[in-house]
């Protein structure tokens, strides 16, 4: 068993490009679900607005990259308004039903053959990410080394002895932008949730009728939360599309949204750093389990008949699901959550 490899992989992924997508999308959900109590089950569709907004604008319409970003953000706002206006005055579960349906509609429209000339149908779109990588300060022919950090043909290696981290120049650019976005979102949200504005959101989560009786326009606040969370979701869509250099409709399924929820609940809802910690932990555990099992099969520690390498993926998700159930039983507030707050609901 190559434990060095297993832990290096797990840690590399714990702060890598994929984790960033989930962290950003879950930050958006945290605004909606964590702080305001809005059950948005269509965060994948908000991400799709960002991803497809960008890809369609650049590829199908032939417009510049930044136009694509603007279109993606506008599409997310439009979707938030479209879903919010009819449902946010109603009981909380209506938003849940409508968002889950809307997400499915978006996915099916994207993969339908009617517009496949523009959207590529189920194959999706590629060829929109070059302007983004052209902005990258990292080049693929850089060669240098300094102490335990080295760069070889654009591939960065941080060798800490017991583990090492390796990223390509494209990964590095995605990570630079992704982590910068997370920093900006957390600073802005940190200021907002500790303001009277954030206090009204938490009040709405607790009891919106009570907040209404105190003279607050609850509908307007819920709409603001839905739009802000949706914009952050669209940003996750940009990072997703750019890191893969393509968009595909079936990646924006409801599962995608549920993993955002897993990440949020794992880290701790209504905690500023909850989504980031949750995403890091989720991808660390996912890679740790898959690599360990793969290594064990290769080293023939697991008998050949018991588990094959194609079964590793499903088994890992089964184990993560089991872990999630145990977490909800023994630590339902998540890693960063406040036990005292949670106890109040039991009464």
């Amino acid at each position: 068993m190559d434990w060095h490899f297993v832990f290096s992989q797990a840690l590399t992924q714990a702060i890598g490009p994929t984790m960033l997508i989930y962290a950003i999308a879950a930050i958006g959900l945290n605004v909606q679900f964590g702080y305001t109590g809005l059950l948005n089950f269509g965060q994948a569709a908000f991400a799709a607005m960002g991803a497809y907004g960008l890809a369609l604008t650049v590829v199908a319409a032939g417009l510049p990259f930044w136009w694509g970003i603007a279109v993606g953000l506008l599409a997310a706002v439009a979707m938030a308004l479209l879903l919010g206006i009819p449902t946010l005055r109603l009981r909380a579960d209506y938003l849940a039903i409508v968002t889950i349906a809307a997400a499915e509609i978006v996915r099916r429209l994207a993969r339908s053959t009617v517009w496949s000339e523009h959207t590529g149908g189920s194959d999706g779109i590629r060829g929109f990410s070059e302007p983004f990588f052209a902005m990258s300060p990292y080049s693929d022919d850089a060669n240098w080394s300094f102490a335990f950090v080295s760069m070889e043909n654009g591939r960065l290696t941080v060798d800490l002895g017991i583990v090492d981290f390796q990223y390509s120049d494209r990964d590095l650019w995605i990570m630079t932008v992704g982590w910068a976005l997370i920093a900006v979102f957390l600073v802005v949200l940190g200021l907002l949730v500790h303001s009277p504005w954030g206090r009204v959101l938490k009040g709405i989560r607790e009891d919106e009728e009570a907040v209404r009786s105190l003279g607050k326009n609850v509908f307007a606040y819920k709409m603001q939360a839905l739009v802000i969370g949706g914009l952050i979701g669209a940003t996750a869509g940009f990072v997703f599309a750019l890191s893969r250099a393509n968009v595909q409709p079936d990646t924006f399924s409801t599962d995608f949204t549920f993993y955002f929820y897993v990440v949020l609940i794992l880290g701790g809802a209504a905690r500023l750093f909850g989504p980031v910690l949750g995403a890091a932990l989720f991808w660390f555990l996912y890679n740790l389990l898959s690599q360990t099992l793969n290594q064990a099969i290769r080293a023939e520690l697991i008998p050949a008949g018991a588990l094959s390498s194609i079964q590793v993926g499903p088994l890992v998700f089964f184990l993560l699901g089991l872990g999630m159930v145990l977490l909800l039983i023994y630590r339902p507030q998540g890693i960063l959550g406040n036990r005292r707050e949670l106890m109040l609901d039991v009464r």
Partner: protein
Amino acid sequence: MSDSETEREEAVFREAHQAALEALADVAPEPGVAKPDPILSATGVRRAFGGLVAVDVEHLEVQRGTITALIGPNGAGKTTLFNLLTGFDRPSRGTWEFDGRSAKRLRSYQMAQAGMVRTFQLTKALTRMTVLDNMLIAAPDQLGERLWAGLIHGMWRGQEVGNRAKALRLLERFNLADKCHDYAGELSGGQRKLLEMARALMLEPKMVMLDEPMAGVNPALKQSLLEHIKELREEGMTVLFVEHDMDMIHEIADWVVVMAAGQVITEGTPDQISSDPRVIDAYLGAHHDGAAH
């Protein structure tokens, strides 16, 4: 404010209350009777749930600066009437004026902003927020509640400090000051009633609508709640409250409105009401063989 000033102000309010009482003294104890200076005036308010007519009030006026009790058997439509008047429910038809303004089209939060603040029969504390935050959220016209201003803490910090002082003063008055950093969900049922009332006062309302403020509150606390409600009148507020206990009503109410089966069946001073046969009928059912018939 100096003590003498406070005293002078209280004297003014006591006078106002005396004047209101005198005004009510000349009002006939009849359902829907007009009052000399109504803060609230409702006409033809009707609300049906399917076939059930929960509220059908022909006319109702509430005199400014008084404590008016709303009584009636369970299911009489008291809570439904509260919901309608405060914008939490829409009537099938009817109009009403609050403080000289038509209030029919106002939404619940706009009613609260206009100065009519309610509490709920089933207390609504914001459980996973501290007692102090429960109070602060209620402060009106907060700049920091706007999205853009929320970001710039310097813009609203001064206002927040003022609101905090006001909240602590109110909590002091309602004996909750030492609980201010506890979660509201950690309070007892009676303490939540106190918190809900204190919270309503953060808005500096013209009229407070209390739906059974004393339900489930122990007798000692009840007495202090009664004092609090009297203080509201002394501060110039109008109080409309739902209560079932006639002793309590005798102690604080200036006027009593009796509802049964959605309608206002009679009104009057507490003394007039307790000797009114229609009230006994309403509570015991119209077909009882009482001395009234």
